[in-house]
């Protein structure tokens, strides 16, 4: 097996924790980045999924909500 002789030069008590630690830290960092840098993972982990989100967005669009009063009055005064 290639590279097996590395353990003649690197103490296993140092090299193995270093290797496993590097894997753990890297994968943890990737998953933290996914939670903090994307919107969908946080929502998914809180019980939302794509179809539920799409359904609510569709319901809001169909409800045809009028603009808030403050915004409507601002529009009237500017004319």
């Amino acid at each position, binding site marked *: *097996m290639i*590279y*097996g*002789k*590395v*353990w*003649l*030069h*690197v*103490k*296993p008590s140092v090299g*193995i924790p270093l*290797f496993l630690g590097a*894997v753990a830290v890297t994968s943890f960092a990737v998953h933290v980045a996914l939670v903090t840098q994307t919107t*969908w*993972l946080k929502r*998914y982990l809180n019980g939302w*999924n*794509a179809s539920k989100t799409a359904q609510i967005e569709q319901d809001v669009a169909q409800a045809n909500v009028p603009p808030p009063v403050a915004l409507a009055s601002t529009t009237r005064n500017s004319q």
Partner: protein
Amino acid sequence: MSDPTASDPSRVWPTGLTEPEAQELHRHLIQGTQIFGIISAFAHLLAYIYSPWLK
């Protein structure tokens, strides 16, 4: 009282392992990595199927 393995010419320093011991250790490490990789690939497949990832 000195370590009897210290004078063994097949041992390599600084670790004091023999080459077959180093190869055996490496074989276990590679096998562990492969098992971890298979479990991880399966977990990512489930995440792909059941989460909004890449959809």
